[in-house]
């Protein structure tokens, strides 16, 4: 009797095994996760809340006097111009670097070389600004003059060439250096994951190293490179200090890359104007920050979606 009674007493005892400590720990872990979602929602909510006065204000009260869209549109153009330029320069370079580190460099030093590239990502953006202003901008002035003379028929190089080099072109190159490690890190990872069987099969058929890469590595790594480029784009769009220091901006919308009058970018405009802004000026800047937030959010979500889609189908794991 007692033997059959003990098992019937067990189930309630087992239920008690879910202790207070367990519940507390699980709850706080889950709570932190939810807190992160709340923070992200909070970022959006607070930005919208502080931007509303600028959205509803009469056009002539907004700084610049042409309404909110008239204020933000040139900034969006400048932001996109610098970021796209950076992307065009950085992506091919980053793919080359990734290939070099994964398949060309001697095995023994490859890891060290990869680390050297990663160092580029560790340098604070304000230091990039210093470098762009003191080294890159003066160094590029001859190129500005050359481009104005020889490529002046393109609207991008219409000139007159800036004598200080503090142009959208220089900014694009600084941003390119900054996003290079981001793109090449992701490209390196996907390239090194290319199936060894495919690579060795290509080599066994007599392919040269480049043919092997073209046939086995690049098709496999394509979406990874695209995703890396999108992440780099997101970083370039939001980059603040380097642009704020290097660019002499604020001259309205123009596609001209090499003249001394450039459109500013959203982020650098905020950094430059915020410390002195008051009243509606702050709301306007926050509204422009909201636009930047939405743009980068869209770019990053797209990038993550591509990465995740690839992870689902690649069979790499």
């Amino acid at each position, binding site marked *: 009797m007692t033997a059959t009674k003990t098992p019937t007493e067990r189930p309630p005892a087992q239920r008690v095994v879910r202790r207070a400590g367990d519940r507390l720990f699980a709850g706080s872990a889950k709570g932190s996760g939810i807190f992160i979602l709340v923070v992200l929602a909070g970022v959006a909510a607070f930005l919208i809340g502080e931007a509303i006065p600028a959205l509803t204000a009469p056009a002539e009260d907004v700084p610049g006097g042409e309404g909110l869209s008239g204020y933000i549109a040139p900034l969006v153009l400048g932001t996109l111009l610098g970021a796209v330029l950076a992307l065009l320069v950085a992506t091919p370079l980053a793919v080359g670097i990734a290939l070099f580190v994964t398949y060309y460099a001697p095995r023994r030093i490859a890891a060290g070389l990869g680390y050297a590239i990663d160092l580029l990502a560790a340098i604070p953006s304000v230091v990039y600004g*210093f470098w762009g202003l003191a080294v890159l901008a003066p160094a590029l002035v001859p190129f500005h003059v050359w481009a104005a003379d020889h490529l002046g028929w393109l609207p991008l190089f219409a000139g007159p060439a800036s004598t200080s080099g503090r142009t959208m072109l220089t900014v694009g190159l600084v941003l390119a250096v900054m996003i290079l490690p981001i793109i090449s890190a992701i490209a390196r990872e996907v390239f090194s994951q290319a199936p060894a069987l495919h690579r060795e099969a290509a080599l066994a058929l007599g392919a040269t190293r480049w043919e092997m890469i073209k046939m086995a590595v690049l098709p496999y790594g394509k979406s990874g490179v695209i995703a890396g480029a999108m992440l780099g784009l997101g970083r370039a769009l939001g980059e603040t200090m380097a642009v704020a220091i290097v660019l002499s901006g604020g001259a309205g919308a123009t596609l001209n890359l090499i003249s001394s009058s450039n459109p500013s970018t959203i982020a650098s405009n905020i950094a430059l104007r915020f410390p002195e802004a008051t009243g509606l000026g702050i709301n306007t*800047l926050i509204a422009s920050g909201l636009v930047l937030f939405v743009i980068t959010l869209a770019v*990053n979500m797209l990038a993550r979606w591509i990465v995740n889609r690839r992870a689902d189908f690649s069979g790499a794991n």
Partner: protein
Amino acid sequence: MSTSTQSPTRVAEEPGGAIRRNRRLPRYAPLGLYVAGIALGAVLSALTGFSIALTAVYGAVLGTLAVYTGARAVEGRRKATDRLVTALVTTAFAIAMVPLVSLVYTVLDKGLARFDAQFFTNSMFRVVGEGGGAYHAVLGTVVITAVTAVISVPIGLLTAIYLVEYGTGRLKKAITFFVDVMTGIPSIVAGLFAFALFTLLFGNDVRLGLMGSAALAVLMIPVVVRSCEEVLKLVPNELREASYALGVPKWRTIVKVVLPTAVAGLGTGITLAVARVIGETAPLLITVGLVTGTNLNPFDGRMATLPVFAYYQLTQPGTDTQAFLDRAWTAALVLIILVMVLNVVARLISRFFAPKTGR
């Protein structure tokens, strides 16, 4: 002409099973061609006023062309393309090294001028020209970064634990996705968020060290979550199962088994996350501002931080411009050193605290 004489021998060899092409460029030919290209490049650049940069560019282009043409004539189209791509890929890497070397050299060159004891012991209080230092800014950065870490590490670590140990279904997917998205938030937007939040709480014109920490935490939390999650995933399941089999509750298993096993990776990840935010300028610029004196209380008024200090020294120099520029570059140098030290520390942590393997 050489190819026409070559093909019969190749055909003759193939039945014998010789796969390897016997016509190859001599081993040191590419090197020689590059040296010749650089020499020619030096001459060419000397025509328009000698410069090392032009010599390197000419040398790389001419050398690559020479190797390609040579390989094309001797080895055939496919090998030549292979050599061309090798040259291009190597050049890409070399190009990426140029800014790194140039940047480090410039910062060292200009920053060492004021890299002295005074820089680390004096603040900018009542300094208008020469002298002064970044004592207040270095300490401010340390305080704000420490507060940021105190906010971010528990939240980030607990979230990572949730994702790896507890998370299921939609909530886990949502958190993973939005943490990824959060890593892409521009730093200036994080600053605006902190500003908007504290403006709502404390009214206009509030500037606190804590605001800066809140902004930096928004940037740091996703980095901590991602790196801790990766590390926790690496802890073998056998360890957890062995612990459960001994009747240890789940939370004690996590605290006593999972976390100690992963401690090296966690330390590395958190240190790298600190390195990521310690150089952030934009959010601090709009939330913390700058002062000339020493304020180490993050709950009271503006504080000085190293990146913002460097920025204002560079962009708003006073009458004695050179003194301000020197301080700016030295601050940049200190910033780089801080980040590098954190990176090295992170590597050391992963080396010395790694779980013992092979028993």
